[in-house]
């Protein structure tokens, strides 16, 4: 290696980071989660509120933007660190609450625990996140810094031992990095679970001078936001993983392919790259060694198919983002025909700790075949929406009931959709499946990128399958026959079923066509597109049958199979709310003063049902759409 010991160089960076941290210790610090999820919930306004209140009272405190801590359900969030108190996280912030916290806690000395979610460090007064069921299951390997450090300054990452894996690796041989990653059996977190070490090894062995490292951050599944949160909250971790990969395989250049719809992630990564360059962590002669490596952001233009590896490379080369048949694999001929390693954001994010703490440590977490953790974005009918990281092998039931705190009151679990449009819907009976690549595959779903949507009795499984097919059909590139035409026909058949059209043969065709698309398609978009159909057919066949045989949608979702009806026994003559809520004037007052709906005018917008006061609860949906017989009702 080079003339300077990289560990020595790193020590200097660490000293700098320590000075940086020390200079900031005296004042209270307010960390506000301003990742995309926080901003959507109003975090920037909360930040303004804090600044305003502090200014008004002349309190000296640092207001700092951090990323996503994962508790998205309680956004906007802030962590207050005041010397003499444990750091405490507050949720559901608004102007009034900010006012109160500044007044009572920062000006006074009352931490207002009644508004706190949890403390971040052990203390005698208030429980920490680890004391709740979610905290007991969670094990944060790659999310450890998310929402806790200020990503805008590299010193914070270095202060939490960031880039120490790089310094360690650079003082050894590249083969050592490769060996650890391979031994750790780190499987690709993009969804398919291909071992990263085997990929890297193939690329390292390729006899070419030029090689590339690409990070796939073209996250596009509906309901998935893991990669976005990591890039926004802790970008340096991903950079470090990529640099380590570059070192291991002998590449000098890497790209982060980030979709342009993630402007905040793009910005944070670009700033992180700048700072890494300034600190000799990127560029020529990294940490004083003779290893050169640089990174660049490539913004994807938003086609879902560009998350497919060969399509991604085509789009980087300025061609249409269409997949290619493999072989050759990317490790043989990837970007510009050169050997290329392409991995997901999360895969790279694991690498620094694997290098630092060793393969055995990594394998001690999770299951033997799928070591490590899984990161999920929990959404849908679940209390604890947000970003969670649990060891592989945790069951879906634990994830939903304990980590996600179950379904809101009155909601009955029906299915969990896992793996996005390429994944499947699993029923109650499959909830004890442990989360790992192989078990989920056997159940008909896939790990996918980690989106997890919980559904309840109000979700129609045919409509859900149709929704995902609409997505994949729209996102199909159209290159190959099975995906271009097959998904179109699948969608048409499903649309017909939501209208009650079809028979037993339709279901059989749905099944056959799905299997053939799976076998026949060119790339993984097509090969996995039928999964939502196949799993719903397998686990919720009765719902399909209800649609076509009885013209009934059990979840009362499919518009063609429902009608709205006002129950005369519950309706009140004194109330007119529904009449005003109807955009098409379909509701009229009957001769007896009660309300009724003129079916021809009704567009089934659900406004009247929502508007009807809970004490009456008179508006209901009926399926099949047949009006009950009624005495004295005016026919219209």
């Amino acid at each position, binding site marked *: 290696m080079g003339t300077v010991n990289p560990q020595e160089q790193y020590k200097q960076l660490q000293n700098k980071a320590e000075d940086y941290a020390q200079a900031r210790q005296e004042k209270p610090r307010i960390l506000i989660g301003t990742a995309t999820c926080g901003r959507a919930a109003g975090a920037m306004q909360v930040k303004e509120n804090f600044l305003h209140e502090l200014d008004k009272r002349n309190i000296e405190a640092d207001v700092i933007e951090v990323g996503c801590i994962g508790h998205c359900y309680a956004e906007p969030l802030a962590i207050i660190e005041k010397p003499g108190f444990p750091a405490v996280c507050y949720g559901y912030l608004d102007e009034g609450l900010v006012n109160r916290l500044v007044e009572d806690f920062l000006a006074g000395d009352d931490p207002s625990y009644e508004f706190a979610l949890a403390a971040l460090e052990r203390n005698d007064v208030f429980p920490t996140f680890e004391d709740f069921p979610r905290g007991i299951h969670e094990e944060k390997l790659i999310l450890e810094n998310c929402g806790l450090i200020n990503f805008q300054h590299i010193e914070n990452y270095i202060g939490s031992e960031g880039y120490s894996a790089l310094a360690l690796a650079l003082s050894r041989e590249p083969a050592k990095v490769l060996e650890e990653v391979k031994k750790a059996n780190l499987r690709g977190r993009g969804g398919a679970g291909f071992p990263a070490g085997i990929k890297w090894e193939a690329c390292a062995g390729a006899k070419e001078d030029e090689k590339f490292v690409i990070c796939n951050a073209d996250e596009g599944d509906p309901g998935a936001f893991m990669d976005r949160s990591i890039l926004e909250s802790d970008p340096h971790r991903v950079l470090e993983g990529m640099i380590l990969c570059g070192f291991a395989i002998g590449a000098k250049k890497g790209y982060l392919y980030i979709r342009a719809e993630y402007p905040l992630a793009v910005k944070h990564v670009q700033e992180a790259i700048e700072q890494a360059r300034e600190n000799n962590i990127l560029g020529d002669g990294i940490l004083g060694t003779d290893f050169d490596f640089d990174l660049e952001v490539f913004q994807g233009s938003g086609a879902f198919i560009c998350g497919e590896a060969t399509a991604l490379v085509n789009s980087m080369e300025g061609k249409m983002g269409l997949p290619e048949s493999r072989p050759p694999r990317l490790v043989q001929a990837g970007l510009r025909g050169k050997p290329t390693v392409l991995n997901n954001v999360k895969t790279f994010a694991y690498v620094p700790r694997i290098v630092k703490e060793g393969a055995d440590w990594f394998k001690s977490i999770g299951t033997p075949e799928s070591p490590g953790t899984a990161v999920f974005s929990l959404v849908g009918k679940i209390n604890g929406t947000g970003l969670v990281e649990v060891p592989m092998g945790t069951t879906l039931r634990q994830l939903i009931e304990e980590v996600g705190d179950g379904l809101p009151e009155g909601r009955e679990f029906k299915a969990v959709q896992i793996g996005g449009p390429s994944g499947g819907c699993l029923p109650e009976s499959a909830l004890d499946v442990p989360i790992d690549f192989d078990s989920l595959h056997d159940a008909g779903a896939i790990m996918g990128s980690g989106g997890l949507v919980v559904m309840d009795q109000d979700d129609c499984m045919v409509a859900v399958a149709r929704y995902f097919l609409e997505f994949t059909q729209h996102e199909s590139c159209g290159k190959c026959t099975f995906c271009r*035409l097959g998904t179109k026909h699948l969608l048409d058949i499903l649309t017909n079923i939501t209208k009650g059209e079809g028979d037993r043969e339709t279901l059989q065709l749905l099944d056959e066509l799905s299997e053939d698309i799976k076998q026949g398609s060119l790339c993984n978009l097509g090969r996995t597109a039928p999964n939502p159909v196949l799993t719903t057919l397998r686990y919720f066949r009765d719902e399909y049958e209800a649609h076509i045989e009885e013209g009934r949608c059990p979840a009362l979702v499919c518009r063609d199979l429902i009608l709205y009806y006002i129950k005369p026994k519950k309706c009140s003559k004194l109330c007119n709310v529904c009449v005003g809520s109807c955009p098409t004037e379909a509701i009229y007052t009957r001769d007896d003063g009660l309300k009724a709906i003129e079916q021809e005018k009704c567009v089934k917008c659900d406004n009247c049902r929502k508007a009807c006061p809970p004490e009456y609860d008179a508006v209901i949906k009926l399926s099949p759409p047949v009006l009950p017989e009624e005495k004295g009702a005016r026919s219209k």
Partner: protein
Amino acid sequence: MSNQVTLTINDREIKAGKGNKLLWVALENDIYIPHLCAIKEEPRPNASCRLCFVEIEGRDKPVTSCSTEVEEGMVVKTRSERVDRLVKTGFELLLSDHNLDCRNCPANRSCSLQVIAKKCGLKLRHQRFTPIERDYELDDSPAEFALDRSRCVRCGQCVWADRNEAKAGVLGFKNRGIDRIVTSFNDQPLADLGCNSCAHCVDACPVGALYYKQKA
């Protein structure tokens, strides 16, 4: 090492040059495998028509022969229950988006779809899938030929010929998914874009999408 490999296709022992693709080796030995998009001169196969499936011993599912290199000792079957099922579905899918008025088609009797139907015992009519309704404009601007997209199977033969043989660069694909079509820059009539009527694209078209006007 020899540059030849010996493989078995449908119980026949065949010698072939190393690096060759299975599809072409079979065809050259008079073993039929249905195909539309394959181009022998193109090193990276398009592999988009998804009709040339074969079974290879030791592989867990059928593979496209256009993208598979021959290997020493490879044992290949061009027909099997699984292969036939995929070919049938693929073929039916293509027909569901194809103007099936063969009698009035200039490619009648020379159409690759007809050849596939005959060789594979498939029917040239709509079966399981409802035909997709389309509204295409006919481009008959070139002097000698015309483009009728209602017959196009998106095989890409014309685009390849236009770029690699004619070196004209007039034709290309646009749009995504079900809307993918062969077209010209900004959908302008071919004749307005420097198409010199060399007709390489017409000769390349396996169906009647690009055709000589005199034949119609």
